[in-house]
């Protein structure tokens, strides 16, 4: 329920904005260049110039970079031409990458690294008017002691009494140097791990000057503008379920989250790869295997109806694939003669040798003798929205469709979800075990909830373990996730990526292939470092996921 005054206020403000665009704003809109469409390009450029892995972090702050990230603003419109604003992005990227490479904080000292830079900057400065180029791009800040973390910030502005039905999400600007405090509801007790550790921004009301009471409508959209102005220097950690989500990458200061390791952990131990030491930490993570039995039959029914067309289409595609055969030469039986083998046998006979009697060509079904395990990311981040759909819903509905069809063509498959809260609690929810019938398991998907974090490594290792007990000739894991590996106790960035990669390599060596699907464009920046080429798909939107899963079957050389 809106206060009508506020409604009017916001309406007038919007109208005012539309009618009375300041000349300055009008000029800016013509020359403005956004980060988003070029982000991948700057990311690649930065990696090349730095000559080591670096990331791009979006933030409006005038800071050049930290020790492994180039900081770029969402847009530049300060220069008088679009080309010049594009050059600004380029030059900031290059200088930041050089700063990371050389560990020199002052970009002015880096000009000699690449001779062409000096003249480019000199050409650009006149187009910036009053603004000084160096001020604009800022200096590097290497001082941060803590490893950077990706995290999420929840703007729990409304503090609703009851659980909300819908959650709105807004992608926010990135923030650096954020201080995290523990909220009142969060006991920093080791025995009891927090369930969600998403940060909550304080003092949101301050922005509007309206000083109004909150109510239980979801007003995030209206507040988006204000939120974007929010300088999120302090956030609070809380366990409350959010009402509205304001998603933003932050870099935290001064908070170490390495929880004590003495407390005994139950479950099945798995090693974790420490790329810095180049060795496995033995029994580091603990998988808690759980079997899901609660089911939602109504959900299954309605999903089947809702996606009838998708299922039909998938069935057609997979059927085509399944009837596709591969020719295996020199077989003892088969519908066709192998002419090469016949000649060789003739020759052998003539020269007085025992001829090989395997003279036939056999056709083998492509999807023959496959065991697959579908592993889905159930972490809290799947609770967010892409293209008007909650990622978790997309994932489970897709899984439902794929399962419906897989059941007809693949002898053995299992479905499991995973999430984690520190290395000692890596949950592995078995939704359908290999021998469970699909018909009874499928409704369980309807009861899945988002939970915790994304520690991919242990989940993969456990899935591999389950697969090795299967007798099928070809074994494959399909991993569905929305993004990057992370956990409460340091599983971010390079560390997590290398661990995932190690787990996959180990699997490959044991004949278990892994194919990953991401439903987030940004995955382009870290997926390739975890998965071998052709062994991952980045799916532009949720609807494409089902089709690309089908494509993966075809490509996985399942018949070799």
């Amino acid at each position: 329920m809106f206060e009508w005054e506020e409604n009017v206020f916001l309406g007038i403000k919007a109208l005012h904005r539309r009618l009375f665009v300041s000349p300055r704003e009008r000029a800016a809109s013509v020359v403005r260049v956004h980060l988003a469409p070029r982000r991948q390009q700057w990311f690649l450029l930065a990696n090349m110039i730095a000559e080591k892995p670096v990331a791009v972090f979006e933030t409006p702050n005038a800071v050049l970079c930290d020790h492994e990230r180039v900081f770029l603003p969402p847009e530049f419109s300060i220069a008088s031409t679009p080309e010049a604003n594009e050059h600004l992005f380029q030059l900031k990227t290059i200088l930041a990458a050089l700063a990371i490479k050389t560990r020199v904080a002052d970009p002015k000292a880096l000009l000699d690294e690449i001779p062409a830079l000096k003249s480019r900057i000199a050409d650009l400065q006149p187009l910036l008017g009053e603004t000084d180029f160096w001020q604009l791009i800022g200096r590097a800040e290497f001082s941060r002691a803590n490893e950077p973390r990706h995290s999420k910030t929840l703007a729990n502005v409304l503090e609703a009494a009851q659980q909300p039905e819908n959650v709105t999400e807004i992608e926010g600007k990135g923030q650096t140097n954020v201080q995290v405090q523990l909220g009142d509801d969060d006991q920093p007790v080791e025995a009891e791990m927090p369930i969600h550790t998403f940060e909550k921004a304080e003092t949101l009301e301050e922005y509007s000057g309206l000083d109004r009471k909150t109510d239980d409508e979801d007003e995030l959209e209206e507040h988006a503008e204000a939120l974007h102005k929010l300088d999120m220097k302090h956030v609070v950690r809380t366990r409350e379920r959010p009402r509205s989500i304001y998603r933003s990458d932050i870099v935290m200061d001064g908070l170490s989250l390495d929880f004590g390791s003495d407390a005994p952990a139950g479950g099945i131990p798995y090693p974790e790869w420490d790329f810095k030491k180049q060795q496995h930490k033995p029994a580091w993570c603990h998988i808690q295997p759980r079997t899901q039995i609660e089911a939602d039959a109504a959900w299954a029914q309605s999903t089947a109806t809702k996606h009838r067309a998708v299922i039909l289409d998938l069935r057609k595609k997979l059927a085509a694939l399944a009837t596709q055969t591969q020719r295996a030469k020199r077989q003892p039986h088969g519908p066709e003669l192998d002419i090469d083998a016949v000649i060789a046998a003739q020759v052998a006979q003539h020269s007085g040798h025992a001829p090989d009697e395997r003279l036939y060509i056999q056709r083998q079904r492509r999807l023959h003798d496959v065991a697959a395990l579908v592993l889905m990311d159930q972490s809290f981040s799947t609770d967010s929205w892409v293209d008007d759909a909650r990622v978790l819903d997309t994932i489970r509905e897709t899984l439902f469709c794929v399962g419906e069809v897989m059941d007809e063509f693949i002898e053995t498959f299992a479905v499991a979800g995973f999430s984690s809260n520190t290395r000692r609690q890596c949950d592995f929810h078995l939704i359908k075990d290999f021998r469970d019938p699909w018909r009874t398991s499928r409704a369980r998907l309807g009861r899945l909830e988002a939970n915790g974090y994304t520690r991919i490594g242990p989940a993969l290792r456990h899935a591999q373990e389950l697969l090795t007990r299967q007798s099928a000739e070809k074994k494959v894991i399909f991993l569905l996730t929305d993004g990057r590996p992370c956990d409460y106790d340091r599983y971010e960035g390079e560390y997590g990526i290398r661990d995932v990669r190690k787990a996959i390599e180990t699997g490959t060596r044991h004949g278990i292939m892994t194919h990953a699907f991401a439903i987030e464009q940004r995955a382009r920046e870290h997926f390739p470092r975890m998965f071998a080429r052709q062994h991952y798909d980045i799916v532009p939107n949720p609807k494409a996921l089902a089709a690309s899963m089908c494509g993966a079957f075809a490509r996985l050389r399942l018949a070799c």
Partner: protein
Amino acid sequence: MSTPAVFYLETGRESELFAKAWEARLPLMLKGPTGCGKTRFVEYMAAKLGRPLITVSCNEDTTATDLLGRHLLIGGETKWTDGPVTRAVREGAILYLDEVAEARADAIVVIHSLTDHRRELFLDRTGETLHAPPEFMLIISYNPGYQRSMRELKPSTRQRFIGLGFGYPSTDIETRIVTGETGVDEKQARSLVSIATKVRSLTELSLLESVSTRLLVDAAKLIRAGLPPRYAATVAIAEPLTDDPDALAAIKQVIELTL
């Protein structure tokens, strides 16, 4: 030893190792990415040791028969023809099996007996057992690229060889390779190598294959032939590596910054 006509620039102590392995009759495995000089090195060493070189490029259709030889039917008569491996053993040549991991398992197994103390080859079709003369040497190459192939050599095969890892040469040496191969001036060669170093740091992102020394040599040849350097680098380095528009744009920017 003769002075070979093949141009090869030593990047470490590899020729010494090769010569010692040859004397000790040990088979050798060369590991390394494409275009980093493995073939050139073997050619050079064969010339240096004054031995004939027999090279076989293996692929997934390479069978034991292809390597050992087969009976051919000629006018009702059968005639045995040696395959390259058999020929190399008879001649005491240096045998180079390129990309051996790609070959079929049965093909890889036939060379096992050549790699241990027996150094012999059994031809089941003719019933012959050949003993390799002391000059014979077996070299295999393989590209252990994490991204490349699902195929890996079995430990039982790998452990029959001593291993020599090839990486990209150091900046200075690679610069000298480029000038030595093509005659471009040193400054230009150095710029090309610096582009390569930068692009190679993207390899881990697996958006592209890495830039090989071969591509740098190609770019330098085009520059020598009179093409503008930026253009030469674009067609010889950027375009062969990737079709991804963002990656192409980013690499072109690096080229423009450097050349």
